[in-house]
Every structure is written in C-alpha cells, then in structure tokens.
C-alpha cells in the first residue's frame, strides 16, 4: 500500500489503514517521544495522544509537504504540551544526577541508544527540551522562545548549560573525542 493510499484510508477512518500507518511510523515517532519525555510509560502516553491527533486531523493534511514531517510536528507539539502541563520552563534546575553509562567501550563517534537516553535523562526538563528543539528539530532560539514562552536569552543559556553538562558527562564516561 502506498503512502497516499494509507492517507486516503485514514481519511475514511478505515481501521486497517490506521493500523498500517501506526505500524509503519510508530517506531520513529516513539523515538521522538522518548527524547522529550523521561519515562517510558509517559512517552507511550504522548505517542497515543499524538497518533489520536494525527488520525483526527488527517483531513487537514493537504499533501503539499512531507507527511512524515507533518506527523513529527504533531508529536513534538504533543510532547511539549505534556511537558508544559508539568514544568515551568522559566525555572532552571541544578543538575546533581550521577550518570553511569552502559557502554563505556564504544567508539568515539557512536552513542548507544541507552546512552543517549541516560544522558538526556540527567538533564533538567528545560535544558533537555531546548536541546532537543535546537539540535534535533533545528529550531532557532527566537522560535524556541515563542514555543516555550521563555526569553531568547533563557533559551540560549539553557542550551549552553545543556551542552556543557553533556560534555562533562561524556568525558567522564570515556567519550574523550567529543568537543
């Protein structure tokens, strides 16, 4: 079944098409949820909310841009809404967590999935969210400030602090090549 056929099926609320779409894209969208939300169960809740929104609003997708990109934006928004309900992005938190990376013997330019999660989970929610939006999603500080309702300077400082903290942790965990 092509992507267009899948989308058409979902527009008709065809359950088989919905399930196929879910099977195809849930791993990548769940990966996004896990980057933003610390706990596995919460990440799954965000994924379900995201997919529900995708299926409910699929008629609004005009087919002009990438469908996967459209879905990713919905899931990122859903993750941010989840975080906003629980976190004030204007408050910064000091980091005291200890990190024990699983795969210390990995080569320098590779990070294992559990290491990425372990590293991200040590960052306070604000740092982690700004880091994700800037580094992976590619937003500018001005856009992040609007999205999270914080100042541009807060966004910048949280990114710098996140980077510094991650560098320290990686060096301690024998990833010396990281700059």
């Amino acid at each position, binding site marked *: 079944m092509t992507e267009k056929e899948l989308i058409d099926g979902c527009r008709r*609320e065809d359950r088989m098409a919905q399930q196929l779409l879910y099977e195809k894209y849930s791993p990548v969208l769940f990966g996004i949820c896990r980057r933003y939300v610390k706990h596995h169960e919460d990440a799954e809740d965000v994924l379900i909310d995201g997919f529900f929104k995708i299926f409910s609003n699929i008629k609004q997708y005009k087919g002009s841009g990438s469908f996967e990109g459209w879905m990713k934006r919905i899931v990122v928004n859903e993750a941010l809404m989840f975080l906003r309900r629980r976190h004030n992005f204007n408050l910064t938190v000091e980091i005291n967590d200890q990190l024990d990376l699983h795969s210390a013997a990995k080569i320098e330019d590779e*990070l294992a999935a559990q290491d990425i*999660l372990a590293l991200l989970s040590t960052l306070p929610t604000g740092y982690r969210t700004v880091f994700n939006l800037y580094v992976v999603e590619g937003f500018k500080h001005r856009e992040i400030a609007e999205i999270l309702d914080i100042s541009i300077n807060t966004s910048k400082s949280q990114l710098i602090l996140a980077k510094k903290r991650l560098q320290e942790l990686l060096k301690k965990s024998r990833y010396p090549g990281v700059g």
Partner: protein
Amino acid sequence: MKHHKDIFDLFRDNQHKLNERPSPEAWRRLERRLDNHRVRHRSAFQQPFGMVAAIVVLAVLVSILAFMLDRSSSRLLAVNGQPIPVENLIQSDVDVEALKVVEFTKQYQEEIAYPIREGSQGRKLIPTATKTKAQLSAKGDLLLQLDWLNGTWQEGNGAKKSVEQWKRVGKNKLEGKGLLLQGEQVLFEENLSIQSVGKDIILKTYTNTDKKATVYNLSQLGYQWVLFENLEVDFPQQIIIQFDGKETLSTLYQNPQLLNMSRYQLEYMQQRNQLVRQRALRQLKKVPSKGE
C-alpha cells in the same frame, strides 16, 4: 589521531537509535480511544439531526392535514359546479432541499437500524494484521509467519557480545540459542525453541542451570512482531520479539504490571543488553549469512 566530533552532531547522528516499537498495549489503547471518538462523534451528529427529523415529521403531518382540507374544499367546489383553476407547477429550490433532507433521514435511520451491513453471500471478513493463536494453528503457517527470526543476530564489538541464533528445524519448530560472551568465554547461555504443541504455539526457554524449561504461549502475532505470555511466572511474564524490517531484532522482557524485583530478577534482566525501568531489552543486529 582522535576524531573530534561536536556534541550536537553526535546526538543528531545517533538519535535514530531511539526509534523503538511501542508496546502492543499502546495500539490497543489507541484503538479504544478511536472507537470512543467514533461513537461520540455519531451521537453528537445525531442530536441536531433528531431536530431536523422532527421538523420533517411535522411538515409531513401539516401536509396531510392540508391535503385533507383541500380535498374537502375540492368536493365543495365540485358540488358548486365551479371550474377548478389549473395550477402552474414551478420547480422550487426549497422543495429539492426538502427532498434531500427526507432522503438523508431515511438513509441515516437505516444506518442506525442496521449498523453492520452483511454484504453479499460468500463475502468473507478479512482478518486484521494481528492474528490469534487459533487462527495461526488452524492455518499451520506458524513458521512462515516467523521466518524473519531466522539467522544470526548480535550486538557488541568490545569485551562483551550478545548473540542470538535462530533456525528452522522441521516443519513446526524453530530452534534458537542466546549467548552472552566475553571473548571466548560464555557468560550466559539460553536455549530457546518455538513450536506447535497440540493446538498451542509455545516458546520454551531454559538455561543450563534451570531444572525445567519455562513455557510461554503465543498470545498475539503482528507484522514482524510476536508476543508470548506466561502469567504464572514471576518474571518475565511477557516476551515480545520484534524485527524492525531492516536489521534490528529487539526482544523485550517485561511484566504487564510493575513489581518489586528481587536480586535474581534484576540479574536476569541485566544479562540482557539494556535495563530500562523494570523492562529488559535485547537489541541485536542481523549478521549477514554467506549467501547474502
């Protein structure tokens, strides 16, 4: 010379590794939510429609009354012997719209009365992607459904290496072995098999120290994933094996409910690759066979 890599690039290049299939329960929860939404959507639609239907019924009653009055006045005219003027019929938009409403009401009432249309004789229901074990054993296509398991899978290049091997032996049996190696030394070995026993499809696991094998029953099978369950054991009660369609085989060991784990149970999980909050996950890459 050491390769100096920016931390942003490091995360960007590796973030795809977080891609993971959510638990089968996630789809069931989403499906329930979609079903509820559909029901609510219908009843919300039904409310204004009920009003339209009431107006239509009222209009029909008024028309019948008017018709009867008209007939009695016609009879009076006939008695009086006066000529009846010829009425000019003009097509009216209002009438067309009213007809549409009546037609739509009829269709909607039929839909409520017969929500599931049976279709023509001989038509069959098409099974969804998830199959029950009864369907599977009836079809006898177990091994075909699990062919993606065949081969050697491994992870780790350093001191420790996890290896899993699966191969088909006979018509209804797949045999596997899971190993955790440190150099040449075997730290942990687990024997596995998936086979048909009577009407059941079972997964058997046992280590050299186990007195007897632990048996899990196939509970669900989806597209390139399978769920085995045994709710009588302490841990893991569910084993989910899934293939990402490219190169990664993931095996998730978990309980449907969270539990207070003993040291033994924690060790069991740590012998797998990753420990993520009371779940153990083993992710292995396919080792190309000689023919590939």
